[in-house]
């Protein structure tokens, strides 16, 4: 066990964990940030997606020892009031069914739009194809990303 100082959602937090503990489980078990979900543990489904210095990463496969000073943003920290344009779009389009994968979907979409405010259909496809939705909400995910893009560009 070692002590790690992490920059999470704009705050500096200290936590103890084995060095190989994935960020996912530190967030969930140590810090109570359970919005980030476990789906596969091998970076195949995208449910655990968070931002590391603004880039979408799979927290299930990222050991705590590799984080350092990099800024971690989770779904809880994407906006203070749940009103990030991507969250607004997700709400307006009523995307979720069971909802379990949606935090990961939103984090992937938000990272895409932060780099490219007007992504092409191809860009959206490339970004979102890594996130599985078992309920099959893909059509609305597409609609919501397009809507969020228009909110950000305007």
């Amino acid at each position, binding site marked *: 066990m070692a002590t790690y100082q992490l920059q999470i959602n704009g705050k500096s937090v200290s936590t103890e964990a084995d060095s190989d503990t994935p960020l996912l489980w530190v967030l969930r078990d140590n810090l109570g940030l*359970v919005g980030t979900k476990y789906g*596969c543990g091998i970076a195949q489904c995208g449910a655990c997606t968070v931002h590391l210095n603004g880039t979408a990463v799979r927290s299930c496969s990222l050991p705590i020892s590799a984080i350092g000073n990099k800024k971690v943003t989770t779904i809880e920290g994407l906006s203070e009031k749940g009103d990030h344009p991507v969250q607004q779009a997700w709400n307006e389009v009523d995307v979720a069914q*069971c909802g379990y994968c949606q935090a990961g979907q939103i984090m992937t979409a938000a990272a895409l739009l932060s780099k490219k405010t007007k992504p092409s259909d191809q860009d959206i496809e490339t970004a979102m194809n890594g996130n599985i*939705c*078992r309920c099959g909400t893909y*059509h609305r*995910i597409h609609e919501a990303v397009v809507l969020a893009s228009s909110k950000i560009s305007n």
Partner: protein
Amino acid sequence: METLTKTNRRNFLKLATATTGGLVLGFNWEANATTFNVLDEAASAADTNFNSYLSISSDNVITIFSPNPELGQNIKTSFPMIVAEELEADWSKVKVVQAMLDIKKYERQLTGGSGAIPHSWERLRKAGATAKQMLLEAGAKRWNVSASSLVAENGMIVDKSGNRSLSYGELANDAALIPVPTDIKLKDKKDFKIIGQPIRNVDGMDMITGKPLYGLDFYREGMVFAMIQRPKSFGMKIKSVDAAAAKASTGIIDVVTFKNNVAVVGKSTWQVNKARKLLKIEYEAESKIESTVDHDKLFKELLESKEPTVRRKDGDVDAAFANATKVISREYQCPFLPHNSMEPMNFFAHVRADGVELVGPTQTPDMARNEVAKLLGIAPDKITLEITRLGGGFGRRLKADYVLEAAELSSIIKAPVKVIWTREDDMGGGSYRPAVRYRFQAALDANGNMVGYKLRGVGINSGNPTREDNFPAGAVDNLLIDSIEHKSAITTGAWRAPITNFLAFAEQSFLDEVAEAVKQDPIQFRLNLLEKAKKYPVGAIKYDIDRMKTVIELAKEKSEWGKKKNISQGFSVYFSHRSYVAQVAEVEMKSGKPVVKKIHAAADCGVVINMSGAQQQVRGGIVDGMGHAFFGNLTFKDGAAEQLNFNSYRLIRYKEVPEIDVHFVNNGIDPTGLGEPALPPTGGAVANALFKATGKRLYNQPFNKQEALGGVNLESKM
């Protein structure tokens, strides 16, 4: 509301009346219930008569408890919409609270069989209408006018002649004193304002801001974490366990063996996950150890069995086939499928001396509690069960195995514990959609009439893999449907649209082939059969011919069937869980490969409650049906599943879904359910369209393993 769900009902009533006052109406979920009661102190003595609560507080908040587990079917939004409609409530003032397990109050507290709305439709309407009538009468009393001169609208009682109004909250205390009316008039369906609208999910904001909603999100002070090593092969049992290295691993509290389980208990999920890998367990066979290659051989033997279970027999099949001008015989096979809900199995259990607390995601909370009671030898009323939101279910959480092991472990270690399944545990852990093989046979006479029809289904732990009374039964003079089941150690269970999730593909592919043989348009062929069933029914007909015809006609019209150039269309229609769905799939050739571009769906589920949720159920069902038809494949070697995670087991992804166009039949029939019925027709519609495009038939799933097609390009754009 957290505290309310944890308080017993009597206290809740007192709390409600003491803090906010207002009208609290108990309404009965039971099948024969027609009475409603205002809950006051006197009435609350008759505890079990009141089965759920609709309350209106003096500050205008309307609260309704939603009893059924929510797994994405959107029940938690649809139920209160029905109440709010009859109540003429202001939807923005409606709050929904997930009820704890309380079978005395709620009777049917489960999610399965697309049955929640059909079961509760009338009860919910009456609850809303009763409260509305009491509010109207309270308003009438206040103004000293007749109730019939007042109207209820948008959360207000309005006196149009006197140009005055009062909010429901202002009248709630008075309404609570009005005797419960027995003669309740429900709204005319054409006047619905909320029902049929697209209403956003009531948990929507919580889901997209990462609030703890799911079982896996449940944490309790002092709780320990556990993972269980179960035998990797079905049919094996533990011979010996060496847990020394696991026990010595960081953060591990204990390693416990019970039944065929070795549970590693520790301080965090990651630590128990790591330690579990250090277990050294030897297993030995306790029953036959099977592989997929054995099943492939077995199916062919079983199809020749002389001792099937006959499911339905009409006319004289032997004579019909003996005299046939032409016989068509085709076989179809599917593999086992895991459910793969995105939230893997998990449950929290705390077995104490004075009772048991269970918290987690389950589709059948009552069964889970009763099985835990039996296991621990305690009374069910000593067990509380809190239903969390479910990160998907698809039938897997109809089983209580993962609840039982958590309870058993807690009773052994005497601590509150959350048992967590990894994806590998989940995919390798059983309760699968059974592997099945069908043989369909049609006897045609010289005029191309289908005079004989035979279906034999053989499956592994499949129960009855046929739906013997479904179409085309009733439309064929001579019909025989039978089945043979092979018992295996590989466990199976309900998987969204049980049996029909594959049977529909096989049947609709076969009928397409028969239509081709008799040179009829595939849609006309089915309509002709339905016409025959209507005019000259053979045996019992247990589907609604007119409803089926209507969805067929609607899909035909909306897809512009047969009128499109360079597009190959395939048709399918299926009746399941009381509802009817017809689909037309469209395939285009791109660089010599077929691409599934679009699916048109026409659904009759009766009245649509929530247009947003209903669209989701149909699209989701189609994506589910298509994804599993193309990719779903769980194989076994020496009793163990060969695919254990998403690197070897493929689920359909974003770029692989076609455009989906959804239409509902607006016939005003009371709702008949929509969680499953859109899934079964998809495989057949897609396969029939692929045949039109390529000239090649598909007989087995998954499609992507069928070399006949030379590969299917699913990389279509939405």
